[in-house]
């Protein structure tokens, strides 16, 4: 366990002794984790490491067997709506009858009692979200006519209109082209500048160092968590992925991750 000392900043998420199990098989084992506020965090780990479980636990979709979770200092039960989620695109049926604007508005659905119609404030939030992902021009387009990259941005807009201080994203760069990826990254950096925190489940180890300032290496336990610069070293990666990582040409075509970028 190579744990870096955490920065003194306030934590956006704090997990203490969290264990999550499916039946008697633990998917997350005794996780202690603090992710600093305003960070752009990558969660990496091999398949079956519990990345999705960690994400779902932070979103309140899974109940941990033990431990406690705090979002911005409050327990998870009191944090409804404070965590926004961008799922993988394939998790929904895009033939659902809605426009991009409708989708963006869905992020505000949690904040209104039923007797109040959608008001100016909600429309403003949805519009701002669309502006941030550069989809204002497509607000009236049915969502079944979107390209993959546009779908991803529309999903982002829905999460943004929720106005949550923490965004959790499940592999947002999967299956989108380089220009959309750049646009989304710029958006992430803007959001961080605005004081929001982002936690991203990420598969591509090569880009972690470029994109994220905080990293969580997960393999059922937290192997290491800290600033990417000091956390993402060969030793920690071997501890996470097993000793064969450095030898696997598919995973590491540029050699070990122990210093300067290739």
């Amino acid at each position: 366990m190579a744990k870096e000392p955490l920065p003194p900043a306030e934590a956006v998420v704090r997990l203490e002794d969290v264990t999550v199990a499916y039946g008697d098989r633990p998917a997350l084992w005794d996780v202690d984790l603090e992710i600093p506020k305003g960070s752009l965090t990558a969660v990496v780990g091999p398949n079956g490491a519990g990345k999705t479980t960690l994400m779902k636990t932070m979103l309140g979709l899974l109940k941990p067997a033990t431990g406690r979770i705090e979002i911005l200092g409050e327990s998870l039960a009191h944090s409804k709506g404070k965590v926004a989620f961008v799922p993988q695109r394939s998790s929904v049926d895009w033939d659902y009858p809605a426009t991009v604007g409708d989708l963006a508005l869905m992020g505000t659905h949690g904040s209104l009692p039923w007797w109040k119609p959608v008001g100016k404030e909600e429309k403003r939030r949805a519009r701002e979200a669309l502006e941030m992902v550069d989809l204002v021009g497509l607000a009236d387009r049915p969502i079944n006519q979107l390209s993959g990259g546009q779908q991803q941005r529309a999903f982002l807009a829905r999460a943004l209109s929720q106005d949550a201080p923490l965004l959790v994203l499940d592999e947002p760069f999967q299956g989108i082209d380089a220009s959309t990826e750049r646009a989304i990254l710029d958006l992430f950096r803007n959001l961080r500048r605005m004081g929001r925190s982002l936690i991203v489940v990420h598969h591509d180890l090569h880009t972690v160092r470029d994109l994220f300032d905080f990293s969580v290496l997960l393999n059922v336990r937290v192997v290491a968590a800290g600033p990417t610069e000091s956390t993402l070293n060969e030793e920690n990666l071997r501890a996470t992925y097993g000793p064969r990582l450095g030898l696997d040409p598919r995973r590491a075509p540029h050699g070990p991750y122990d210093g300067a970028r290739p």
Partner: protein
Amino acid sequence: MLEIFLIGALSAIGCGLTGPVLLLRRRVLLGDAVSHSVLAGIGIAFWIHPVVNSPWLRLGAALSGCCAAWVATKLTGILRGRADAALGLVFPLFFSIGALILAIKASNTHLDVDQVLSGNLESSWLERFRLGGTDLGPQAAWNMLLIVVALLAAGWIWWRDLQLYLFDPQQGQILGRPMAFLEILVVVATTSVIVFSFDAMGPILLVALLAGPGICAWFLTSQIGPFFLATVAAGLLSVLAGTGLACALDLNIAGSIGLAAFLIALGTLLMAPDHGMVFRLLQANRARIRFVARLLAVHICQHEIKGDQASENTRVGLRDHLKLSEKEVAAGALWLQARSLAVWENQILVSTHAGKIFAKSLAEGQDSTDGQMGGEIQRPASLM
């Protein structure tokens, strides 16, 4: 007659308000399964309290419908999402329980399986709703009205939650909305509509009114509010056309409505603007002609530069060298002519000045995709 239409129309509205939910959750056949499964409840209720037309029968039907839906949902989970297999297992079970009990216990009353299956809209108005001796119309209409009002109220209260539930229930859960409750609500609402329109409509017609109008909406709109409205409208139209048809030709009303619902759905599927099949065919044809026209524009310019246009840019030359049909050459040339990009001169297609600029812009990878030659193409011409 008017009363029969009223009962049918109210049932259509009830189905129109629940159909989209089933359609968007890919569970239309749940309606079918529930409508057959109610027979178990009818059978058991009749066993306990053997009186035809008692409210106990309806209650039993509702309970067994909900129960079947719940068992099917659980079983779908156990079968890892194979909803069709789960329904296939559950609904014959419930149906056969009902059929067996009725065969044993009700063989000498007029409560028979045939009637349960096909429904009987013609006689549905016979049972009256009386208050203090005054006849206030058919009981079935009042029942359905109550259901419709309840559905509208529920739809109004949970409108935004319903959208979350239909599109992405996980998102609804994250936002702290009551998704599990909505799941139950949907089953209860579906079962209520089925149970209360069941004796008038029968399960077959019910499925027609749950699926057909929803399919119309699918092709007509891409927003959820209009989706519900279109479904209700198409359902009402089906009932109106079906009742009319039945009157004109003296047919079974339920069957006619089912047929009308199918025809209306088919018509929409073919003729709907934007998504209908006819529109798509026309669109594909237009796209082909635009493509051919571009092919021609570039080709004739190239041969004009080479100087062999006399042999290449004829109808036959274009047809053979570009592997097009004569019709396509003619249509493509017409497209170019209409935009003053090319003209036929002595059986040779000759590009105009604008046509040369158009071909050049195409070769450079610029294209005005709307098919209108706008300022983009013309601008360099005026600069020269």
